[in-house]
């Protein structure tokens, strides 16, 4: 029945592609980021535009401008940087101050290095010193080719990234997981072969394949694209200013903040107004309503889905067929949980282990009743989190 193959491993034919620098970028920021630029300020490529207010070494990275330009707008979720206007007659052109390469990177170690990485745009929130490290070398989702492309074309950068990681976090055992039948080794890690069929490519299952333990608490996991980002900072000694994005059959190095519209146009990708577009892969991606959205550094793909290709998901009744149970990698009962959520029985979803859900989307994918199964589970999780928050607020007030 499954006409779509969920294999993620492919033979990479093309090389990593470059795109021309866009004139205008819209660099996404998160709510934790604090913009440190003003409107009309002239910026150089690599200059910090938003900071993470934390003083610690672990957290989301700072945000940097990916082009020389002028700040056009500061929005809650993005900073728009446009081309510097031509100088008026008699005035001198304003030079954009670009930062110098950071030579300290080679000498620092441990938490100091970690803090430096954070300041240069690397997200360090998911790392812990001295834990074992699993590198997820599987392509994250079907049609998203970034991991295998980078392993083919950016070995030196990955190696540099791993060396920096080793200096910063002193990990124990480092294991690299690649698809069955693929040969790849990275400086000093043990290579483990594992299934490449989605959802086996999601982090907890890759950790299981590498260590044989379910949700062990002494293992950190990092994707190849995240490792590449660290390697890029380590080799260029410049802040992180690009994302590696899979569009169609090819993989591109994209300046952060490049709009989806620009990316699709420069890559010559066909799309129509009745298509759905999402950032990241087809199973976990976030759909965008507006092509003016900028690419975040963590983005791995732009997915296009023609409307009408798949049956529409609707709030149909569950028919108890059990397909979702057989597809679920977390061994929970998505169908039952979705019905609890449908009828506001959120306590029951908790006792039936909704927390084990990986949000891989397989339940919705296989559902013959075309129910939004995972969406119900997400609703339940959100409700439970809100309840917990309400309870803890009450306790604080006591």
């Amino acid at each position, binding site marked *: 029945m499954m006409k779509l193959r969920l294999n993620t491993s492919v033979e990479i034919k093309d090389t990593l592609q470059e795109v021309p620098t866009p004139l205008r970028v819209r660099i996404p920021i998160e709510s934790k980021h604090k913009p440190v630029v003003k409107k009309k300020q002239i910026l150089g490529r690599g200059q910090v535009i938003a900071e993470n207010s934390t003083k610690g070494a672990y957290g989301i990275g700072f945000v940097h401008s990916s082009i020389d330009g002028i700040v056009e707008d500061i929005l809650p979720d993005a900073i728009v940087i446009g081309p510097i206007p031509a100088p008026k007659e008699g005035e001198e052109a304003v030079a954009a101050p670009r930062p110098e390469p950071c030579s300290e990177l080679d000498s620092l170690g441990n938490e100091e290095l970690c803090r430096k990485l954070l300041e240069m745009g690397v997200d360090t929130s998911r790392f812990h010193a001295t834990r074992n490290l699993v590198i997820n070398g599987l392509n994250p989702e079907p049609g998203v080719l970034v991991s295998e492309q980078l392993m083919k074309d950016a070995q030196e950068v990955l190696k540099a990234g791993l060396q920096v990681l080793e200096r910063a976090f002193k990990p124990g055992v480092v294991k690299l997981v690649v698809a069955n039948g693929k040969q790849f080794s990275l400086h000093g890690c043990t290579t483990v072969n594992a299934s490449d069929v989605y959802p086996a490519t999601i982090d907890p299952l890759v950790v299981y394949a590498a260590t044989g333990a379910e949700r062990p608490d002494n293992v950190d996991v990092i994707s190849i694209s995240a490792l590449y980002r660290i390697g890029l900072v380590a080799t260029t000694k410049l802040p992180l200013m690009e994302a590696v994005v899979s569009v169609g059959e090819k993989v591109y190095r994209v300046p952060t903040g490049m709009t989806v519209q620009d990316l699709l146009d420069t890559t010559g990708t066909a799309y129509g107004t009745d298509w759905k577009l999402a950032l990241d892969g*087809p199973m976990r991606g976030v759909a965008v309503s507006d092509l003016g959205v900028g690419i975040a550094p963590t983005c791995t793909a732009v997915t296009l889905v023609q409307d009408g290709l798949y049956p529409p998901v609707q709030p149909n009744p569950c028919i108890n067929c059990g397909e979702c149970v057989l597809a679920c990698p977390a061994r929970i009962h998505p169908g039952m949980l979705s019905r609890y959520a449908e009828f506001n029985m959120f306590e029951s979803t908790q006792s039936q282990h909704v927390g084990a859900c990986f949000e891989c989307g397989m339940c919705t994918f296989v559902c013959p009743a075309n129910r939004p199964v995972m969406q119900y589970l997400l609703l339940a999780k959100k409700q439970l989190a809100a309840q917990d928050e309400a309870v803890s607020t009450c306790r604080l007030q006591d």
Partner: protein
Amino acid sequence: MASQDISKKMYSVASAPLWHSGATLQKNMLHTLLAILPVVAMAVYRYGYDAVVVMAWAGFTAVVTEAVVQKIMKQAPTSDDFSALVDGLLFAFLLPATAPAWMVILGTAFMVILGRMVFGGYGGSPVCAPALGWAVLAISWPDLVDLNGMLLKWDLIEPLSELKYFGLDAISSVTPMSLLLGENLGALGASQALMIIIGGAYLMSRGLLRWFIPVSFLAGVLVAGSIYNFIDPQLYASPTFHLLSGSTLLAAFFLMPYPSSSPTWRLPMLLFGFFGGVMVIIIRTYGIYPDGAPFAILLANLCTPLFDLIQPKPFGGR
């Protein structure tokens, strides 16, 4: 400015996943209809116009009853997913070809109302609707459902009734091959063993039917049948006979795996199937009905919630 032009165009959004396997209830049911087509053809070949009448009334009544009840319950009509038609035909397969039209209509209406609609429609029922419809008729009008009595106009034997009332010697002439080809009397669809196997194999090849329940059900029949046969081969029929006679195969491939009334986890599915298979033999051996399969299905259905209590630990759970 380019960004302003863009912002006028809004794209439709959806929550992930954006892909879908493409499976729909309607497609599944159309494949099921295709799978039971050989059974229908063979039934018509064996029983002629009588079989056509029974199947037509059952299919028609099932669809109409569902539509009427849905109207009353203010539900959206779902006749176009063909599940009612499939249920109606499966129900007809359990009846003798000469069943009177009024009984077929009444039985189908009961099947749809008691087996489906009172639980909210297809997929909500804790029991297998066609088996339930058959049970209602078998208890209310035993003579009109009795295969031996109803099929007197054909000069053949009904193996299970012969075994029940005249012992093992009466069926010595019944070969497995004749059972496979439906050359004996029986329920109009359930006795077309080979065609049912073909239909079941088709559904399995399309991934619409999992092997767990059919295989464990047939294993249950074989194991229990072998035990009795081993105790006294002069008294109890061979397991192969039980496997191919009556509605064992229809139960294995179409009625036991009925989605809402069967368990969902792997181990419970295996236990459920095996339990149902054993019950078939026990009811055939000790019960008052020649064919125990529909009652065995209903009994196993009632145990489904118990089987489904056997759940694996969630990933990473303690």
